[in-house]
């Protein structure tokens, strides 16, 4: 695949190519359910450069999916409401654009791959139709041409016999194949940013390996920015360039891949790394993070991680920790970031 030439000004007026590709800055999202306000994302910030892979990790409910949907602008409002922050693509704050521009950005500039491909594909239309739809809506291609493009894409994502399979329906594909279809759909308009929201969680390890390989290949070929959302640190270690760790709606640590794994600066990251069972090591008892994941509607005061933290002190219960940078390009939201960073164990 050759270097893609694109005219961004058409769909995104005011784009500045000197700014980072995608910048999420202090994003706040809350849900209003039956009079209750649930802050799902509380000030998430990270940056993605072209051709890089940013992994967003965190346990279930930490706000990973909500963040990605906020970037895409596909949150249902209500119940969701973006209460603050900015999402800048080439320096343009998407949150301030009108609906039409945002629609143009979706698919064209940012695309997303969801976790459960079976439910994310409309069961009543053939995959060819669903992929071709993008060309027909955004590019005004004819039905026939769209089909040819769809075949081409299916071929690219490694679906054998794409010509015949283009008319099949989602249920006729296996899990891994469906995920490839999703990826083909996301790649259709050659976006600069691809968000993959747990693309392999529902898959077997052997298939997961196939899909991750595919994603990686495509990303390098197209020099896309990839946001990989997952809670599998093994996958992260395999593909990511940078990592953002989320806890209770916040990014609690952000650093390059080796830094995070070798010298985490946040107790949560540290505990998480220790808790993971590994194939290549044997330990009799697993280390665990005590307690329960936080309920976003009733977060504890101060640092939200303090009830489960091994390093917690009284200060953590009352004071919200500031963003600290114990090393260059290594940020952590912990009162004791330096200490944790320094402690190599």
């Amino acid at each position, binding site marked *: 695949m050759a270097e893609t030439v694109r005219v961004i000004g058409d769909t995104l007026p005011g784009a500045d190519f000197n700014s980072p590709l995608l910048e999420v800055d202090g994003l706040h999202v809350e849900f209003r359910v039956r009079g209750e306000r649930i802050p799902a994302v509380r000030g998430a910030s990270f940056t993605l450069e072209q051709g890089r892979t940013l992994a967003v990790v965190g346990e279930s409910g930490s706000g990973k999916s909500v963040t990605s949907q906020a970037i895409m602008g596909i949150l249902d409002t209500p119940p969701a409401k973006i209460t603050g922050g900015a999402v800048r693509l080439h320096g343009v704050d998407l949150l301030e654009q009108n609906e039409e521009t945002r629609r143009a950005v979706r698919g064209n500039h940012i695309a997303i791959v969801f976790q459960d491909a079976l439910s994310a594909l409309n069961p009543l239309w053939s995959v060819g139709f669903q992929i071709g739809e993008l060309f027909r809506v955004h590019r005004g291609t004819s039905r026939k041409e769209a089909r040819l493009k769809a075949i081409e894409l299916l071929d690219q994502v490694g679906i054998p016999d794409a010509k015949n399979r283009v008319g099949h329906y989602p249920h006729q594909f296996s899990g891994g194949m469906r995920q490839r279809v999703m990826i083909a759909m996301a790649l259709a308009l050659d976006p600069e940013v691809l968000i993959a929201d747990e693309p392999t969680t529902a898959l077997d390890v052997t298939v997961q390996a196939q899909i991750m390989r595919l994603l990686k290949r495509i990303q390098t070929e197209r020099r896309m920015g990839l946001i990989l959302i997952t809670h599998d640190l*093994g996958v992260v270690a*395999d593909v990511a360039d940078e990592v953002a760790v989320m806890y209770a709606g916040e990014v609690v640590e952000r650093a390059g891949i080796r830094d995070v794994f070798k010298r985490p600066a946040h107790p949560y990251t540290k505990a998480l790394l220790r808790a993971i*069972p590994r*194939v290549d090591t044997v330990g009799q008892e*697993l280390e665990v993070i005590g307690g329960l994941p936080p309920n976003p509607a009733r977060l504890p005061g101060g640092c939200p991680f303090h009830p489960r933290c091994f390093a917690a002190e009284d200060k953590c219960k009352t004071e919200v920790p500031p963003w600290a940078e114990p090393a260059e390009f290594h940020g952590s939201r912990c009162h004791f970031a330096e200490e944790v960073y320094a402690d190599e164990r």
Partner: protein
Amino acid sequence: MNAELGQADRGVDPVLEAKDLVKHFPIQRGVVVKRTVGHVQAVDGVDLKLYPGKTLGVVGESGCGKSTLAKLLVGLESPTSGSIKLQGKEIGNLSNRRMRPFRRDIQLVFQDPYTSLNPRLTVGDIVGEPFEIHPEVVPRAKRAGEVKELLDMVGLSPDHVNRYPHQFSGGQRQRIGIARALALRPQVLVCDEPVSALDVSIQGQVINLLERLQNELGLAYVFIAHDLSVVRHIADEVAVMYLGKVVEQGTGPEIYDHPRHPYTQALLSAVPVPDPDLRGQRDEIVLQGDVPSPIDPPSGCRFRTRCWKATDHCAEEVPSLDVGDNGTHPTACFYAEERDVTHAVK
């Protein structure tokens, strides 16, 4: 690292033994008279031995028949053929009523902590249900105490008896499920992916609990999972399943450090290791395609369609699960050969 486990216990009789276990689900058609047009060969000739106090891990990809095997072992499905012996007694084809006394000795822990607990019953009712079904185990008056004890044993506050399952988190619910399974003091616990639905941070708690209970109560586990790393931590012996058959069996180190079957090797190599330093350092085998349908499995070796070593021979003959000439543990492959995929090699 070889032969440190398993062999040592050969003097003891296994608590649970399955021989040539087969389960085929018929596929039926027809309005009034049903015709059988085919079979789902979910489990197709599996041999297992489980020794007291030990853990047998079963790994394999989705749909390879792990859950079916679990159901067969606890008597929820009756096998098409083969035998299952619990403490030397055949339980394979017993009627529901005749099976009942054996149920006290073998219990199941489910994968999904959200659907395995009746949302309309309190924790006390759920954990106490085994006593109602088997009233002879504990006299009525002592049941409440027993339930509290069980809750305490799995690390839940005994005050929680009057709560409903939805008031608990996933990990806590899984503990309730374990408490229920333990109520009758079984010898064997079959755990069907007990931690797959849990977050990494919670997963460890449940695994530790299971290990602790094994030490305290001398339980034997059949531990089913598709997460190989978890199995490695808990299992003494591991069986790798592919399409209803066990393709390789052995102790943890035998399987993980010295895998001989191509499928096991591919499986292990596909597990990502949370260490960025190992990126690109390991021997990576990426299989092509998906697991074939169990309705019409490939002839001969079932793995041959995805195997890089496959020859015509593989299509003609079914490889048996043998130790082989130069092998250390049973492997069902004509071209079994050790290959280390878990450690950095490059």
